[in-house]
């Protein structure tokens, strides 16, 4: 390996010899970014890209990877659907020679991609939620967010606690979820938490992701008499559910399951009706105000959680490469596992750091509760992370 880096350094010097710029001498270290940039989930992929690029600015400003004297270069691979993941990873590793990968937002895509990174022995950091990602005993996959079952469970528990504090305990809950991997996994967490809390679930209903009419769903919520609803939705379905609830004057607290409920478009689509809508989230931008302000200035909208989380994942990987002082994926993998990073983008995540347990799952993060207030989303629970008090049935909860 040592010989190889000398060779690379020599090649680098030769390549930059004619240039007058103050460029680091070695060939840049390449990191793969595996995200959907086309297809139905591409908005999330684009947010991820924006976050990673913002994180890269900071790395460049700090002089790249100092121990190697090298710059960092991003190599994108578009994965519109899970079936494109394996080939994309193969190409990133064998042709583009990336030393690590971050991605890929969609859980089912991450599951497929991580099988290949495991086989090729290349580290990958993801924020996808699915439980299986880090429960297969894989060595090379790391998850910066909590598992879906934990997120679903907290979604329920936090709501129950806030309602209790507000003096209006929950007696009947409704669960609605889209029927792909994400919705199904999170609904299980919700269901288990309800059973543990002995709160009856009066409606437990899944619906197809591409639903074209939400009125049957809302009719069922109304008929069930629930005093709280937990919808786990992507975007279009989230929009239809909230609008139809307003039409039918169904005014019960709504606790969304992340994804569709915490994107800037949610506000654009619903205007004043977003006010007071809750959601569970793996992170929120109000915990990283300086980074969020730069992001907003650049992209004209608030920083979605995936931008923050993938920025953190990416910086964690770069720091690990720096500490490993190597381009060898195995050494980088060990450095990622060992590193506890609490600055830069990582400081903006709940828990303030990125670090992993023996399975590669985050050892510090916890899900947070957010609520729409005007144009923004504020962290409202748990108290140690809150930036504003939660509002329940129109009243501040102390």
């Amino acid at each position, binding site marked *: 390996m040592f010989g190889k880096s000398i060779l690379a350094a020599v090649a680098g010097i030769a390549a930059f010899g004619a240039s007058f710029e103050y460029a680091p001498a070695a060939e840049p270290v390449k990191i793969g970014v595996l995200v959907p940039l*086309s*297809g*139905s989930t*591409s*908005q999330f*992929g*684009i947010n991820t890209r924006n976050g990673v690029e913002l994180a890269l600015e900071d790395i460049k400003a700090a002089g790249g990877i100092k121990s190697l004297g090298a710059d960092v270069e991003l190599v994108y691979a578009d994965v519109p659907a899970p079936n494109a993941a394996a080939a994309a990873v193969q190409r990133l590793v064998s042709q583009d020679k990336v030393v690590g990968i971050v991605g890929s937002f969609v859980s089912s895509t991450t599951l497929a991609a991580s099988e290949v990174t495991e086989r090729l022995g290349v580290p990958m950091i993801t924020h996808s939620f699915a439980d299986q990602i880090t429960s297969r005993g894989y060595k090379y996959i790391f998850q910066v967010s909590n598992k879906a079952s934990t997120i679903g469970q907290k979604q329920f528990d936090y709501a129950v606690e806030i309602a209790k504090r507000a003096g209006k305990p929950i007696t009947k809950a409704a669960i609605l979820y889209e*029927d792909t991997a994400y919705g199904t996994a999170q609904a299980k967490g919700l269901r288990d938490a309800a059973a543990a809390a002995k709160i009856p679930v009066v409606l437990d*209903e*899944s*619906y*197809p992701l*591409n*639903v*074209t*009419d939400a*009125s*049957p*769903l809302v*009719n*069922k919520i109304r*008929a069930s008499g629930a005093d709280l609803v937990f919808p786990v939705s992507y*975007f*279009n379905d989230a*929009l*239809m559910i909230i*609008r*139809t609830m*307003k*039409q*039918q*004057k169904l005014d019960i607290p709504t606790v969304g399951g992340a994804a569709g409920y915490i994107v800037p*478009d949610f506000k*654009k*689509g*619903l*205007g004043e*009706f977003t006010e007071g809508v809750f959601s569970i989230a793996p992170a929120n931008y109000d915990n990283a105000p300086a980074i969020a302000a730069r992001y907003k200035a650049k992209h004209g909208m608030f920083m979605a959680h995936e931008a923050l989380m993938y920025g953190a994942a990416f910086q964690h990987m770069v720091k690990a490469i720096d500490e490993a002082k190597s381009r060898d994926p195995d050494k980088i993998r060990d450095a990622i596992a060992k590193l506890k990073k609490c600055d830069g983008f990582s400081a903006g995540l709940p828990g303030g750091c990125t670090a992993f347990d023996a399975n590669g799952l985050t050892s510090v993060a916890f899900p947070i509760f957010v609520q729409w207030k005007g144009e923004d989303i504020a962290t409202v629970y748990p108290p140690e992370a809150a930036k504003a008090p939660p509002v329940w049935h129109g009243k501040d909860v102390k």
Partner: protein
Amino acid sequence: MIAFIQALIDGVLVGGVYGVIAVGLSLVFGVLGIVNFAQAEFMMMGMYAAWFAWRYLGLDPLIGAVFSFLVGFGIGALAQRFLIQRVMNAPHVSQIFLTVGILIVMENAALLLFGADFRTVQTPYQTQSLQLGPFFVSVPYLAAFGMALVVSVALWLVMARTWIGRAIRATAQNAMAAGIFGVDAKRVYMVAFGLGTGLTAFGGGIILSYSSVSPTSGAQYVVLMFTVVVLGGLGSVMGAIIGGVAVGIIQSLSTLVMPIQVQNLALFVIFIALLTFRPQGLLGGASR
């Protein structure tokens, strides 16, 4: 009983809109004999047209849908003249390849031009409903249904009372005979295709008033659209409207007894049964 009537109301209102987006597909097949797999993409384009009309001209999407129609008509007519016309007498496989190709190009062009964002409009009536005793009648659905009725009547008038409508029907019945009587088949094909894509785009405009648009919006409706058309009888305009309402009602009523997740299961079971016992569709063969 209350739940049943409520489901029936929702079903009829949504179904009327399904009818309008499907009527274009039916018209294209009835006249040109081509199954246009890209039809749903014209709906997506109509949604974008209505969105831009709302954003920059301040037009309500129900009015902006007229603009959608014009865009859908223009692009459809051009696509017919320069692309579809070339495969009019080609094997079905070529026609399928071409229309599927157009579908892929349109979807990706939208992604390139407009990005992947979901775009939505806000209207004052969007979250309103009329309350009639225990029943809720959604105002956006009611308005959309009203527009669907208006455009169906307009289409019927065009087909029955105007020269071009008669020419379209004549060409559909027998292109050669129509030619002998001085009907320019090429022009009729172009107009009929444009009318078909325009109507679907118009439907997209109406749907935008209560939904959202992204480059993949078409994919959400494509299966529904084909079901509606086949249910009503491929090529039958009236059948498409009735098929649309039927699909809306089946979808809505099925949720009373089954999980919402399988609302399309009920639809397809009825669909298969109908195809088995009445393959020409509900109104197929009866009228055009």
